[in-house]
């Protein structure tokens, strides 16, 4: 455990503390600006991962009809192991990883936790915190001679909890965190043809923003500022990586997957011609060209099942 503690301190905490303190000094002794610029830097560093995640999600979405077909194929026999192995083989063949989609989220977590701790360590509220800050600085960091660093930003104390900030920041911050997270979730979640998955997506779309808005009351304002700006930046990145023609679709309500076009399947490396053929028959009627933006996935699912049943009888 001690080793993990050292790793956490040396890999996450110290670089973060020194970066924020240095930015604080460079940006006119302003902790708010330091956090915003820090957010931009982190987002830029994570840009390749974010783009990869977006592409993976697109590819995953494009593979959904094939997954569906596999599910249908093995539904009767109930051979779940075979279904699982074939699904994974298909993912592997297409060069996508279901876990890969969660990468940036996993990486964000230690950053959030680290940033929370870093804010309190850069502007420590306790005497022992101030004493330990002396050990956290790199010897070359000029910020160490500027301690204590100020924490005011637009009339807020960024070290103070959001709930303790003056009106209207105390309620505006949680609302902005929630709304920005909802928008970010909305435009980054790929539609799914599976009604259960679509329902889960819908639940996640609302649950996470509401939970974070609620928790944001008890976050230090600096952390809320980071989450808000990282959401805004991710929305911007998503806008940037989306093809111009499809940008208008980003904010439309949707639950189910778009029809897999050849272009959409293209990122799936090594997909065989026969696979493509399968993909274009079976479920093509399920996924409309407009991206399948139905809010009634269950009804659609029922229609699909009926159509398949008719096809089988033929």
């Amino acid at each position, binding site marked *: 455990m001690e080793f993990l503690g050292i790793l956490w301190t040396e890999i996450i905490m110290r670089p973060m503390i020194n970066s924020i303190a240095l930015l604080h000094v460079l940006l006119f002794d302003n902790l708010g600006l330091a956090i915003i610029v820090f957010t931009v830097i982190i987002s830029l560093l994570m840009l390749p991962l974010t783009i990869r995640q977006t592409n993976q999600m697109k590819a995953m979405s494009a593979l959904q009809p094939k997954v569906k077909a596999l599910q249908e194929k093995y539904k009767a026999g109930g051979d779940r192991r075979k279904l699982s192995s074939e699904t994974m083989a298909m993912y592997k063949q297409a060069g996508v990883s279901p876990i890969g989609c969660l990468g940036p989220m996993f990486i964000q*977590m230690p950053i959030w936790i680290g940033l929370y701790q870093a804010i309190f360590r850069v502007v420590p*509220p306790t005497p022992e915190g101030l004493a330990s800050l002396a050990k956290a600085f790199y010897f070359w960091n000029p910020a160490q001679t500027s301690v*204590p660093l100020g924490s005011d930003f637009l009339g807020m104390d960024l070290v103070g909890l959001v709930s303790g900030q003056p009106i209207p920041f105390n309620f505006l911050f949680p609302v902005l965190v929630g709304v920005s997270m909802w928008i970010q979730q909305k435009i980054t979640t790929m539609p799914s043809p599976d009604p259960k998955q679509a329902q*889960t997506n819908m639940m996640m779309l609302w649950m996470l923003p509401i939970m974070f808005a609620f928790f944001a009351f008890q976050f230090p304002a600096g*952390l809320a500022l980071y989450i808000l700006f990282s959401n805004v930046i991710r929305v911007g990145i998503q806008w940037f990586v989306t093809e111009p023609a499809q940008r208008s679709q980003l904010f439309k309500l949707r639950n189910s997957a778009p029809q897999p076009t050849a272009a959409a399947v293209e990122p799936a490396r090594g997909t065989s011609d026969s696979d493509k053929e399968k993909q274009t028959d079976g479920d093509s009627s399920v996924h409309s060209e407009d991206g399948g933006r139905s809010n009634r996935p269950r009804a659609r699912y029922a229609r699909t099942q009926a159509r398949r049943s008719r096809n089988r009888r033929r």
Partner: protein
Amino acid sequence: MSARGAAIAFALLVALSTVLACTGNLSPSGGWASPVTSGDWVYQATRQGSLIRVDAKTGLRDPAWQFPTEDQKFGVIYGTPLVTDNAVYAAAYTCRGDKCEARVYAVSTRDATPLWSERHFALETQIVGPLALSGETLLFGTADIERDRGRQGYLYAIDARPDADKPLSERIGNRLKWRVPVGGKIWGGVTVANGVAYFGSMDRSIYAVNISDQLAAGASRVLWTFEAEGAFVARPVVAGTKIYVGDFRGQFYKLDVEARAADRTRRTLDARREWSTELEGWVWAEPAIGDTAVFAGTLGGKVYALDIATGRSSWATPTQIEGQVIGSPTILGAPGTPTLAVPSSKEDVWLLDLRSGTVLGEFNTRAAVDATPVVRDGFVYIHSRNDQLQTFAISSRARVNCIQTIGAKACS
């Protein structure tokens, strides 16, 4: 597990981790207060915020003397209590989230009962440094006050007189005498000399404040300020007409009180009567003043002997100890080699040769020490971070007594 279940579990995990990580305990932990010897007793403020006392000779705790009682908590204590013949003064504070509440109180040395009718003087702030007493005025520095965010810190002066046993008509209604706002938190203590309070603030200034009760109308309480480049957390030490103090930029200063008073607008050092020396690391501890040298420790673990006349380092290189120096170095009146006892925030109290800085040994406390060691009658009393009050014989460096300050048991 289905994809849906995994997604929900993941979302909950994210939320739970974030909440757990972000609602960690940010409360102060205290435990920096040094022991105080008075009469037959050694008084100690515990990490849990209680005042206790032990017999100086036997090391046994007085079970009848404790304030507040176990079921009453005023928060944690950082500053060393102030002990007079009749009273013990202390300040504790506690924080919930970013809201802090501090209480200053006075209790009887006889039976630990409150001496003030209102029991304590409360403020929504942090009080970290030790208190100072001048006549009937109790002085202390604070951080910003919750409902008065315009200022970052205050010097408070309150009426210290006891009134708990007086009739209602003779009780002190408003204990506040006056307060002086400053531009930064005051986490260090206040030193009083010749009717003037000296203290440092995180606004990178040393203040000299007139504490007289009879202040001419329109006169400013602030006599002069000295602006440095680093924040001050250490309590200034006044010796004669000189002030010795270090800052968070690693500068150590010797200031001349009279020169400052004569020209209160002057900001720079006067080379003839004052000096400053650059040290390696922030200075939190107040220095120990010897006959020819000033001994200062830093948070970088360096200990310096500075020539009192010139400020030059007397030792060729400063001595490096393990850990930070938060408690002040103490000069031991030891027979033989003159010795400096330096508490380490890592472990033990280091013993250095006063003349050369050579490490002579240590008082083996088996725990970190953030408090200043206190010397009395050939013994050193040390409050360690593991909640022990340990007594060492200076001559043998052996531990002769030890008691747990929380729970009153003997140390294991």
